[in-house]
């Protein structure tokens, strides 16, 4: 099997980033774009761009059959789904398997295995990966008994929920019965699935994730961890590697746990195993696995020198893993800021529109992944990510300083952005000290400050 032509079923910065690696590898590219993205930079960069449907993603980027038809009709050997959209839909991976198109990602079965939260929790336990005390609760009396075993505070979560949706915190056990009934009713209404489970609530946590690559035959390597604790409403804003202030033993155990989980699934391709680090207990717990390339993968690429998209393609092509664990080294520190078309001064309200002027930073150790140039549009139909600015330097301090200068060298006119937020965080003593927790952003935003610089 040999991949020569790849259809990219995505848009924005990730489409361009995948196109670049394809070009470097001498692979032909077909971009599946909606009507709103036909003039975008990726559409102009691809060897061929197909219009797959109108702007609304439900009529274009989310249409499984249309994407596969586009691949068959252009004789593409493989589909790269990027992140978001159809990247973690077992239906696309499954239809590709049926039609003889290579899906650059895990098998449909693996996507399903990690997509079900309770199932993934069971796999973690079976792999010897620590999970938070808790579990499913089928009846209220089950839940009450389990709740008393876990102790307060705890979280009631919807099995079908995610990204903070369908979650309820219980501080006193006498409130548990009400919380369970409400959570189940809400989950039923929101997701059509009223199943819930309970987990211990971690008051002081950090979001640390492990990048893995698997050959699909049971061999797995990890590419280190990323700290993504700078989040606002479960949306990551700043990511870095290595995670600052982690003990070496804990870090090594995290890497092992990430690799063990992927090995258990005989995982194929690139994936990320997310963990919650409990700061008070100096321990960590499995959260979930993302069966795709992540937005924040460039920080890992910066310190390892590995092109993760190229590895994805090689694995999908049946060439297995090029890397042994002992070949993978980590040099320096990398930090990434996500630049969104969101007005930091107005509660991060999305601000799509015409980018009249875009000037991005450059320089040694600076990487900018973006599809936005002067005159580009940020359409209102999709997420507001405009760019990722990544700085790489020998030390964390130097990387932050470099990124601060890069943010100051960035100029965007026409749409409001969160650049001022990033400038503020990168200069914040708590952030520069390192090891912030997931409650950092709300506390940072609550501090009095001048918001004069937009």
């Amino acid at each position, binding site marked *: 099997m040999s991949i020569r032509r790849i259809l990219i079923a995505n848009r924005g910065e990730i489409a361009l980033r995948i196109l670049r690696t394809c070009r470097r590898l001498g692979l032909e590219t077909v971009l599946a774009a909606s009507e709103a993205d036909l003039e975008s930079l990726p559409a102009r960069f691809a060897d061929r761009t*197909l*219009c797959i449907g109108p702007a609304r993603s439900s009529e274009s980027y989310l*249409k499984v*059959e*249309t994407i596969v*038809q586009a691949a068959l*009709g252009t004789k593409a050997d493989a589909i790269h789904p990027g992140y978001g959209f159809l990247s973690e839909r077992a239906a696309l991976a499954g*239809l590709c398997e049926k039609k003889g198109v290579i899906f650059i990602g895990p098998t449909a079965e693996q996507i399903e295995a990690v997509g079900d939260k309770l199932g993934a929790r069971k796999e973690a336990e079976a792999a010897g990966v620590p999970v938070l005390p808790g579990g499913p609760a089928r009846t209220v009396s089950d839940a009450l008994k389990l709740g008393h075993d876990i102790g307060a505070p705890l979280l009631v979560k919807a099995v079908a929920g995610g990204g903070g949706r369908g979650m309820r915190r219980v501080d006193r056990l006498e409130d548990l019965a009400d919380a369970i009934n409400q959570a189940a009713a809400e989950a039923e209404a929101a997701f059509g699935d009223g199943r819930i489970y309970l987990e211990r609530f971690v008051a002081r946590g950090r979001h640390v994730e492990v990048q893995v690559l698997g050959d699909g035959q049971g061999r797995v390597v990890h590419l280190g961890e990323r700290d993504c604790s700078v989040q606002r409403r479960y949306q990551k804003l700043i990511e870095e590697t290595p995670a600052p202030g982690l003990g070496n033993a804990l870090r090594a155990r995290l890497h092992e746990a990430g690799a063990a989980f992927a090995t258990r699934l005989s995982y194929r391709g690139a994936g990320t195993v997310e963990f919650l680090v409990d700061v008070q207990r100096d321990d960590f717990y499995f959260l979930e696995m993302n069966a795709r390339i992540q937005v924040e993968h460039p920080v890992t690429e910066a310190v390892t020198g590995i092109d993760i998209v190229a590895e994805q393609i090689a694995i999908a092509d049946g060439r297995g893993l090029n890397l042994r664990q002992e070949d993978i080294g980590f040099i320096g520190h990398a930090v990434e800021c996500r630049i969104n078309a969101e007005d930091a001064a107005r509660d991060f309200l999305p601000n799509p529109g015409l980018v009249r002027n875009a000037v991005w930073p450059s320089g040694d150790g600076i990487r900018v992944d973006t599809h936005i140039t002067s005159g580009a549009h940020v359409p209102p139909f999709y997420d507001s990510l405009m760019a990722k600015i990544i700085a790489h330097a020998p030390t964390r301090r130097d990387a932050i300083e470099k990124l601060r200068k890069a943010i100051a060298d960035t100029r965007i006119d026409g749409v409001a952005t969160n650049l001022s937020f990033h400038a503020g965080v990168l200069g914040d003593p708590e952030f520069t000290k390192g090891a912030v927790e997931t409650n950092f952003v709300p506390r940072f935003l609550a501090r009095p400050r001048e918001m004069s610089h937009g």
Partner: protein
Amino acid sequence: MNLTAKDVDEIMKLLEDSSFDSLSLEIDGMKLSLRRGAAATRPECLQSPSSPIAPAAKASPSRHPARPPSEPGLLEVVSPLLGTFYRAPRPGAEPFVEIGSKVEPDTVIAIVEVMKLMNTVRAGVKGEVVDIFGENGALVEYGEVLLRVRP
């Protein structure tokens, strides 16, 4: 049993002459979904046959540059979805329309297939066909011009 192209053609005719907008048929594990117009292809849409179907034509100039320039006043009929373009109901059959054919808004002009789902495309406008683009069996994109019609 197997459905032949001829059977599909006949089933399509039945649907055309009926008052229904879509038809879903399952025979021995074989699934056939037909839909009038071509506004949507998702199977769940087949359960709401009363949903209105947008005409496939628009008078605005095409984005696809490969087409020869149009003379003023001509209407373009564009593909309402990406898929495989068929000019005739089955191989060897008469094409739905030829240059010089007169079309009404509900005249079927082509089929666009997406993963075995046959979507009939209607003219959406009234007039005489002056140009036909799109090769039989080739991929057409969403919004690609299929015909030009002189009103």
